[in-house]
């Protein structure tokens, strides 16, 4: 059984068929790439998998359980984290405060007590050290550079303890140095057992990092396999050149 299984998912926005019978799977412990021309439905697929959009048809299963119809917070609690193409952080909260938002508390006493316990803060600082943002911990997140915001968003998602993370164009608007740093973090986290499903346009990044690549075009999967084979696939070349 694959970790994540998408089966025959369709999603329509008015006149646009964003997803059309899309089926794919992501294996436990892999770094799986998702590529395809702009508008091919990659972000929509991520939205469906993480509960930010409801599919019109088809099912999504996470470790065998159907999750299409669950709200985003339930899906995150099950272990699927994600980042956004346009980066969603809380700009007027400090870096530290951002990191505490995904930490859940049970009961009234937990909610009414301080925003940060010692154990929570220790985990936050560990993760901030890991992504290299510790020195900026008291800075409003809106003051960070775009690349730093991407790192913060990834660190925030890690606070929720996900087993698989969907990254939507982590290299978008980020310089090559920062992208290399992000690739390093992904490799290290993958070594610790976290599965990654990554949309990215930078082919060097995809070829170097991904065990397997899935190619989408007009809402469906047109090719998949190891990175080299996919790169040489004529259907893939045509999809990109046809745009």
């Amino acid at each position, binding site marked *: 059984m694959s970790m994540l299984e998408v089966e025959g998912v369709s999603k329509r926005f008015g006149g646009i068929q964003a997803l059309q019978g899309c089926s794919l799977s992501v294996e436990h412990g892999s770094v799986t790439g998702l590529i395809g021309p702009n508008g091919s439905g990659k972000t929509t697929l991520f939205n469906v998998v993480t509960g*930010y959009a409801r599919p019109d048809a088809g099912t999504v299963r996470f470790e065998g359980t159907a999750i299409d119809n669950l709200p985003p917070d339930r899906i995150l609690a099950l272990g699927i984290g994600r980042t956004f193409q346009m980066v969603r952080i809380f700009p007027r*909260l400090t870096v530290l405060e951002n990191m505490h938002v995904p930490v859940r*508390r049970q009961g009234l006493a937990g909610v009414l*007590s301080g925003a940060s316990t010692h154990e929570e803060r220790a985990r936050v600082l560990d993760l901030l050290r890991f992504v290299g943002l510790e020195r900026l911990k008291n800075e409003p997140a809106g003051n960070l550079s775009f690349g730093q915001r991407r790192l913060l968003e990834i660190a925030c998602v890690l606070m929720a303890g996900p087993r698989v993370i969907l990254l939507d164009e982590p290299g978008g608007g980020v310089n090559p140095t920062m992208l290399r740093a992000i690739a390093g973090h992904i490799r290290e986290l993958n070594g610790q057992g976290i599965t990654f499903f990554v949309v990215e346009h930078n082919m060097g990044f995809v070829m170097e990092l991904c065990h397997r690549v899935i190619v989408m075009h007009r809402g469906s999967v047109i090719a998949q396999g190891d990175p080299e084979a996919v790169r040489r696939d004529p259907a893939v070349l045509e999809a990109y050149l046809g745009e």
Partner: protein
Amino acid sequence: MTDGAGARRWDRAGIGLLLLAALAFPLVFTNAAITTYAIFTLMWVAIASAWNILSGFSGYVSLGHAAFYGIGGYALALMAESWHLTTGGYATFAYIPLAGFIAAVFALPIGWIALRTRKHSFVVITIAFIFLLQLLAFNLQGITAGSTGLPLPTPPWTGAFFNVPFYYATLVLAVAAVGVAAWVRRSKFGLGLLAIRDDEDRALGFGVPTGVYKLAAFVLSAFFIGMAGALDGYFSSYVYPQFAFNPQTDITMAAMSFFGGLGSVAGPIVGAVVLEPVQQLLSVNYADLALVVFGLVLLAVIVFLPAGVVPTLSAWARQRAARSAPTGETGAPAEALAPIRGVGESS
């Protein structure tokens, strides 16, 4: 470091001094005109701080919370009527939390309805509620006596001393409202409200119970504003629909919070302390000009200090500290960002 122990000690010392000054105030200034200013200033500290818990922290700007001010006043009047409390006294103050509680009970369904909508429509719905409740106060003659208004227990105190019990009661209310706002700001609940302000859907996706938090903040604000309305009613001995349910009360509480700085604990205090005496002075001496001048001051603040006075000043102080201590680990923006920007980060 913004959360250094040294800074906290200074904060605590400052708060202690302020409290002492507030406690001693009526002993030093016995003139009734001056203590009346002080009472209304403290009243607005309480109202603006309570309003800030909902609107400043969560970003849901309510222009209808004066409804709960009115409900608080009428609640106390109706309690007095049905329990035959015609002469007041110190014991009357004990009914004020009950009036606040009744306002909070009303806030539950009103908030539940208003919070069905997102931020912009929410403002409009809250405005509708204040007018609706004013209309009800005018027209439910059997309960409210309409435009005749309702009497409250008459305070037994006379002369210059009249204001003193009210001064201390209002001080207690203001300290409680500010204390609760400060505690909310530091709690997990408050962090959730601030996350809602910045990106509600993302907060929801991270598991913040946004619906419950928004409603809780709505009701908590209403509770304190209801108590302020009851206290004001007792102080003035009468409630009338047009003064109890007054849209201008809504504008004032919002304006004070905007002036001082939305979402900070000190902001609404500064807003009330600066603007309430100004408003009072203007309305005594230049009644017609009062609103105009008040409006212009506000416009200037919103244009030139959009974050409000307190956040602007503290950012400015932090920058100065960074400039005067360029080597120390101050955590100031410019220098903390520099090394990481130096890696070659764009934007």
